[in-house]
């Protein structure tokens, strides 16, 4: 029984190592000198079609974008639960179907509310 958890542990280690490696490789290459790095002021400035930016760019944005992010988050979290459920639907049987239906119902109520309040309409 314990052996199964061993596989999960190995998989976890491999995943963590792989992600860390991806982050560390450019740093190592730069340290070794393979990747040239000559940072200077202009290179670090932001790119706006070949010109310097005009005026203040850290401005207060329209509140509307926040609603989009909120609604997206709600639906995205739903998807995270659906994937593992959908993959092993046959073993889980009908009880899991009811549970997921309840989950989708709750999220759908939230989405319906946002729809009625016309949050996503853009004037």
């Amino acid at each position: 029984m314990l052996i199964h958890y061993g596989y999960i542990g190995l998989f976890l280690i491999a995943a963590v190592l792989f992600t860390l490696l991806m982050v560390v490789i450019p740093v190592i290459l730069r340290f070794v000198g393979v990747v040239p790095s000559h940072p200077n002021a202009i290179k670090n400035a932001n790119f706006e079609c070949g010109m310097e930016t005009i005026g203040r760019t850290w401005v207060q944005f329209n509140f509307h974008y926040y609603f989009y992010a909120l609604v997206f988050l709600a639906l995205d979290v739903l998807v995270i639960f659906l994937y593992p459920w959908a993959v092993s639907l046959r073993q889980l049987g009908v009880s899991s179907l009811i549970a997921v239906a309840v989950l989708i119902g709750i999220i759908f109520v939230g989405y319906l509310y946002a729809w009625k309040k016309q949050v996503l309409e853009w004037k």
Partner: protein
Amino acid sequence: MALRTEPFVLNMGPVHPSTHGVFRMRATLDGEVVLDIEPVFGYLHRGVEKLAEQRTYTGFIPLTDRMDYLASMSNNLGYCLAVEKLAGVKIPERGEYLRVIMAELQRLASHLVAVGAFLNDCGAYFTPFLYMFREREKIVDLFEMVSGQRLTYNYMRIGGVSQDIPEEFLPAMDKFLATMPGFIDEIDRLLKENEILLARAKGVGVLSSENAIACGVSGPVLRSTGIKWDIRKADPYSIYDRFDFEIPTGEAGDCYDRYRVRVEEMRQSLHILNQARKDIPEGPVRADVSHLVRPPAGEVYGRIEAPKGELGFYLVSDNSIAPYRCHVRPPSLINLTPLREMVRGWKVQDLIIIFGSIDITMGEVDR
């Protein structure tokens, strides 16, 4: 509830993938809504009009190629017509027919790029552009057969065209004229009722006909507002009065109408090409005008219907071999006059489409 948001200024600067060259707009945005834009020109100003005063009349022709580099043949035709009007030169029949064939082929090529760029701005990243370029390569092959160059042809001379067409030109053109209508119908079937294009372009950037006339707009942008004004019909130059073709016009003057007018004009150009192909006569292609032509002192304004609009040349001559003053009426620059009102209140992505639908070439805007 009053939301406090601050407008900020964004540079749709000279190096931008969808400003069709080095055009720059200082856009004051509030979130995504465009409050105001200030167009900035001059990033490709090469002083062509000053160079014209240092070149002979024939020496200026290569410079006209590089003004609207997507319609070089039309530029040549416009300039040569103005000089011939001033110098009173009679062009042989075959030369006239060759000029009409080249001008209409060039209108097709320019509209292909215009429609491709417009769809590219609508969001179909580069796929329609490549289809349009595949067709444009066929036209460019024809031009290469005739003038040896792919983009800046320098084919027309004062008094006709520089050399006759090779004998394999007409069969190649027949093959092209046979396949091109099929391609245009294919685009039309795909895009005429395409709901994405309708949603993006219908009713966007409306230009009223009074505003169009007040701003002196010309070409497909003017015809899309419903005004039936085409210089080939209203003031026929060279032998355009011998061909029959309609002038497509739009109703509402929005981006979708401008696109429709350009597609219809491609069909009309094919119609003209078929007629010109049938009754092209034999004979000389160029009147014997010396390369150092000296038109009599005076001034003239010759204009043609270039793909972008009314391209005119105002020439003042003092009976010397170089023009005293050569002003070019840039249809692209004048078509940009109403851009500021058309764009206000729309979102940034609509700004890109409205600008793309006006279809300018920076070589002609900045000269």
